[in-house]
């Protein structure tokens, strides 16, 4: 392992097997991990129940901790933080994948209608088969998301699957499905439409250990996905023709990546509701903090998404006693100002260099 300067002019860490990581990406990843860990620990010790860092240490050491503190940390805060991080990770990762796939920086599971497809089918299942075990919800979401993905590919056609075409078609499909969602909420039995509305706003309330355990499978799947897909996206980012010239089987790679994106979107949507705009926001924020490509880009985007959702959940839990803040709204309250500032700074920087 040695530190050197690559052909692109960035300082890289080069490993003996040929793997190289840009130093600024590595530093950014470490900082994001530290933010996630420090923020997570801070949130674990903060809440309605008075608790301290020593309570947290004592709990993990197996020391005697009061029942209220143990419940607050182990049964309420920790599952929410873990679920928030994993869901944010998956949504942001999906956004980064889709942006490369559609070759459009605005693509995300929400804009392309994948989230709405998952939502509509999950809602249909909840309304028509209310007694169905919850384990089927991600599968229903996957079916809906996949149906939208196939529909998009059919409508746009293989040769126009990049750029503006797929995004505009995605927005059209998403708008149509949104109206179906509204009709379902309006005509569903009141107790169901109430629950659906709360889920649509994004919520980590239902995050217990069994939910975390179920979702952890998808999170674990996302890690090898980053390693495999990240490499493919480096070629796809150059355009279909260049990717083909580099030996990439575009006709197989693209649908495969889309299926992974749909799977992760469906799982996240079923678990915490649609985290609107996170898929666009997190990759761009990560790109602003530390420009990256391939695996590093996916990893940093996913980390940023995870950190944003954990922070948003903190705001939801520790915010006003009078006003309930849905997680989806809290994400926007934290992420949108940072996103706007980062875009403005980028514009200023481009104007200066241009």
């Amino acid at each position, binding site marked *: 392992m040695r530190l050197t300067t690559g052909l692109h002019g960035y300082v890289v860490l080069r490993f003996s097997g040929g793997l190289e990581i840009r130093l600024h990406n590595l530093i950014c990843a470490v900082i994001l991990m530290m933010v996630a860990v420090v923020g997570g620990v801070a949130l674990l010790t903060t809440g309605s129940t008075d608790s301290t860092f020593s309570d947290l240490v004592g709990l993990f050491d197996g020391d005697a901790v009061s029942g209220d503190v143990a419940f607050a940390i182990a049964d309420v805060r920790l599952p929410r933080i873990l679920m928030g991080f994993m869901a944010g990770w998956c949504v942001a990762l999906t956004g980064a994948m889709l942006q490369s796939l559609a070759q459009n920086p605005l693509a995300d599971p929400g804009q392309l209608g994948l989230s709405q497809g998952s939502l509509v089918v999950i809602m249909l299942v909840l309304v028509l088969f209310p007694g169905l075990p919850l384990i089927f919800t991600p599968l229903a979401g996957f079916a809906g998301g996949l149906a939208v993905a196939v529909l998009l590919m059919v409508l746009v056609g293989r040769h126009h699957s990049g750029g503006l075409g797929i995004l505009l078609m995605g927005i059209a499909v998403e708008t149509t499905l949104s109206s179906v969602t509204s009709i379902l909420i309006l005509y569903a039995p009141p107790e169901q439409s109430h629950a659906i509305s709360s889920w649509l706003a994004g919520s980590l309330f239902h995050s*217990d250990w069994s939910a975390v355990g179920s979702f952890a499978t998808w999170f674990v799947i996302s890690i090898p996905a980053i390693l495999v897909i990240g490499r493919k996206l480096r070629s796809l980012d150059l355009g279909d023709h260049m990717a083909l010239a580099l030996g990439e089987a575009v006709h197989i790679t693209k649908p495969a990546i889309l299926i992974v994106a749909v799977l992760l979107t469906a799982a996240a949507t079923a678990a915490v509701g649609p985290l609107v705009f996170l898929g666009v926001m997190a990759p761009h924020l990560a790109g602003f903090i530390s420009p990256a490509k391939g695996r590093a880009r996916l990893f940093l985007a996913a980390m940023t998404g995870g950190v944003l959702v954990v922070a948003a959940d903190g705001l939801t839990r520790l915010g006003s006693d009078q006003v309930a803040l849905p997680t989806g709204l809290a994400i926007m309250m934290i992420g949108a100002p940072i996103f706007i500032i980062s875009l403005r700074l980028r514009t200023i920087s481009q104007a200066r260099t241009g």
Partner: protein
Amino acid sequence: MHKLFLTLALIVASGLAHAQSHDVQDDRGRTVPMPDTPERIVVLQEPLLGIPILELGLDIVGSYGRNDDGSSMLRVDFIKTVLGKDGADLGISGIGPLGNIDLEKLSALKPDLIIGGESDADKADILSSVAPVYLKNIRTPDITGFSTQQKLADLLGVSDRFDALMADYKSQLDDVRAKLPEAPNGKTYLAVIIYDQINVVSNMSGVIQAIEDLGYRRADLQGSGKASGYGQGFAVPLSSEQFARLNPDILIIMNSYVSADRGPAAIRDRLNAIVPGWDRFLRPHKEGRVLYLDSVAVTTPTVASARHTLDAIEAWATSK
């Protein structure tokens, strides 16, 4: 030897603890380990569950929609208006902002029973990590008048208290009936509540129980039927044109619960905005057959709400 006794004592204690609860099936078909004598009840719906329980003389330790000091988060305070009591004095705490239950606060109250409605079905599993959750239907079409309170009394083992409340209520009912200007048998009534539009009140509240127990019957509403409205539960929308044509023998009009002023003048102002000129052609108004009631006081499914209604009807009958 000591350890053996301790173990035996623990086994006996756990057996006794188990004996202090029994399995019941709630209105959603779930099996709930119900404490025999629940002492620390938390309600997820105050007007439709909390008020009936409090009137039965049971204690509530937590209620959705209350601040930590027991004051109401909303502009209205059902406990104060319906029962004339103070939430803080009763030792009722909040469990987080509306729409975001704080599990830590809920757990800190050490509840032995959580009672919710149909809309809490999605939360039942996670709330069960704190205490048994009993889901009671409070808005389904089969719920009428005091039925919620009666079923809660049976569930919580205080049917005798409900019977006592009913005895007092029936006595007041006879008194009020004797003071009415005309015998109510065969006469009709209709109750409406004004939100952003006018809505017909269905039969799941104390006000309707009282007026029907007096002998009035619900006036037929032209064009109404199962398929004519998308709403269900407490109230269904009514068009302004239909409102202007209403002519029951008694018309009850109420302002929304969230209105700061629910008095007659405020109700008339709201009607002026929704149906301008209503007072010139609504026959019950012109003939003095309209009762303006406080929706907060009379719409809970309790004997107390029915008695508030009887008080208002008695005052109206005396003034005739």
